[in-house]
């Protein structure tokens, strides 16, 4: 059996810690209601806020810690704590807010935190789902292997098509010439290209096969099966690129917004104690 992943690290140590934190937070929240209603400036609010701020800095430190190959504890453990305590942090910060929101720096900082956490959840999800799907998709291959096989199919298809009528030859040549994989961000995330020349070539070839001269028919069958195989390969390559793009895309939000969160949090604390 695989020895522990980030979720059940040390027998769910950080999960338990997060649950305890959340329960303590809720208990304190329910027991000490300030006379003027829940808000961040009560003693409970300051307590929750300080704890949350420390945790945010600690979460951010993970970004530095994971790039170091020395240091305290396993990176796996750090990530496990990062995930579970980050979830608990969201609850504590919500209690800290006392459910008061408005158009101000305080709610901005909260919103940034939510974006960071939600993108983190998505990242979590991708790491749970996509590695397995990637293996299913690629099997023993890697992307370069796929490309090599596509290139071989190209060469073969073109050789056969040289002997075929112009329209078939052009279609095949165009498919070989113009097929590209993962042009833009959107194609990479969607995992397919709506006007893919390879797929279009297969469609067109299917129509062109009807009125062929007798001597071309066998060649046509070979060509068609090559092109279909080729299109499957192209699709798998795109799929692989899609998984890799999705595995990294959440960081587009997670990282910049956590930087923004740090700045917003500092501004939030400064604002509170400047106009104390």
């Amino acid at each position, binding site marked *: 059996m695989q020895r522990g992943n980030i979720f059940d690290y040390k027998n769910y140590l950080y999960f338990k810690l997060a649950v305890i934190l959340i329960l303590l937070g809720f208990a304190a929240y329910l027991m000490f209601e300030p006379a003027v209603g829940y808000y961040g400036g009560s003693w409970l609010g300051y307590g929750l806020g300080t704890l949350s701020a420390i945790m945010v800095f600690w979460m951010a430190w993970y970004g530095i810690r994971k790039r170091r190959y020395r240091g305290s504890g396993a990176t796996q453990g750090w990530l496990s704590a990062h995930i579970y305590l980050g979830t608990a942090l969201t609850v504590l910060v919500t209690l800290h807010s006392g459910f008061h929101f408005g158009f101000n720096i305080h709610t901005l900082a909260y919103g940034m935190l939510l974006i960071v956490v939600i993108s983190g959840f998505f990242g979590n999800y991708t790491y749970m789902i996509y590695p397995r799907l990637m293996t299913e998709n690629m099997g023993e291959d890697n992307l370069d292997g796929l490309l*090599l096989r596509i*290139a071989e199919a190209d060469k073969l298809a073109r050789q056969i098509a040289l002997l075929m009528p112009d329209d078939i030859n052009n279609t095949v040549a165009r498919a*070989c010439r113009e*097929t590209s994989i993962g042009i833009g961000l959107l194609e*990479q995330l969607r995992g397919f290209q709506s006007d893919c020349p390879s797929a279009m070539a297969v469609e067109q070839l299917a129509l062109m096969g009807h009125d062929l001269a007798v001597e071309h028919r066998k060649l046509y069958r070979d060509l068609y099966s090559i092109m279909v195989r080729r299109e499957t390969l192209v699709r798998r390559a795109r799929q692989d*690129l899609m998984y890799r793009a999705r595995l990294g*895309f959440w960081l587009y939000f997670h990282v910049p*917004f956590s930087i923004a969160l740090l700045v917003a949090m500092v501004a939030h604390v400064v604002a509170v104690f*400047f106009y104390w």
Partner: protein
Amino acid sequence: MIQCLLIKVSYNARGLPVRSYRTMTAEEMTIGRGAECTIHLPDPRIAMHHAVIKRLDDGQPYLVSVNGELNIDGSIRQAIPLTHGTQVMIGPYQLKVEPAPPDVNLAVSLVLANRLPDDFQDLKSRTHEPLQGAFVFKRRLSIWMAAFIMLFFLVLPIAQSLIPQLHSAMTQLPFGFDRVWSPGHVSNAHLHFSAQCSNCHQTLTRKVADQACISCHRDTTPHIVDKALQQRVFKTTRLTLGGVRCAECHREHKAPHPLARQDDGMCVKCHGKIKAIDANTKLPDIHDFDRDHPGFKLSFSTGDAAKTVERIPQTDTARLVEKTGLKFPHSQHFGKVQGPNGIWDVRELSCTNCHRQEGKEMRFKAVSFQRDCQSCHASKLEVGHAANPLRLPHGAEQNVMNALKVNAPKQLAHYSEILKTDGCAYCHEIEGTKKGDSLPWRVVPLNINQDWFSKAHFNHASHRTQKCQSCHNVEQSETSADVAMPDRKSCLRCHSGNSPKAKRIASGCMSCHSFHSHPVQSERLAESLK
């Protein structure tokens, strides 16, 4: 017929051109991918029957397009005359008309100018890395967002506070930069000047000082009437007491939550251990109305001066004697009573027959003879024969005496005696006069207490669903000396302390008491702060 020398140029492994020569003789020479073509060019970019070399009507050899494109100097042509030096692109091949040797009419060279690229490298160049430029994008987004937040939520608000010129310029605008720091809605009362934070937050990093409040609230009175004690108690900013500033109880940025705190926390902070605040105080420690609030004290105005007020505990029943100057048994004015017109005249009296309510808080109008007494007791101001009585006015003794002097001068002394013993004296206390007074006797001036609970406020209106007798026990009262004010126990029947109890309403300090002292008794808070 065309006799053509075809020179095919290819490149060997060392990159040097290799020319192979072939002479052909034909009417037409077809060029194409097809195996049957005279000039066979096996390349997918060439059409099956791409072009043909033939003589046209003018007898000159032309290159004529069939199914493919012919490209000369970037333009696509249908027919190109093959004169010396002509260079034509047939797909990827370059055809050039060379100087013809004497035995042929035409010499052309063909060279594959654009080779097919290597399939794998080509495909690889068209395969993009996932999330290209992610690092740059993330770094750029981080910097922009951080800079935006820092500028608008940190630098500009601070700059506005620190740079006086910017600060004064921003006060002209509806909002300051520091508006984004506001943690919540400002109460309606402060809304019109709340756009400028500095109106209240006068010193950076300092809590809002009382001076900021006092600049508008000049009439606010302090908590303690004694000025020295007020200063001593409230200037102490001990951490345990939270430093009693206005803002400790009046919490702003909490709308729609009320501006003033309604709980007892701040009251109990001092009154729970009152000796720690003022060792000489006679006040007891109080935490909760239900638990340890002492019995009520009633304010009696005693002595001659109307302002002399004595506070007598309700337990001290011996001293709870009201000297109003009236003789009034409540017990005879309640329920079914005998009217003045014979035994069949029975009237039903209730409290409100005489105690008429007044105002929103249901205070009561003073009882008036004309309105409340006369309908039954008119005969007490009638003297003389019953069939034709002399009706005297209710009012100052002098007016009554004057009426007697005018209407019955002969019986003045007789009637005066009747009034002294029965008429006026039926309701009023009568006192003799000193020598030299113009009147033989006078009615004792009335001294009716208006405010029994001078340290608390009570709203009759909010208790109007209750019967008067449930608090004021007057049915058995035989004399007007009785005091019928409810005690703490009767409040506790419906009210509890800080927390609600079964069928009892939670009632904090603020339910009955005000923090700021009565304005008449006290100086302004502004003066005590100086």
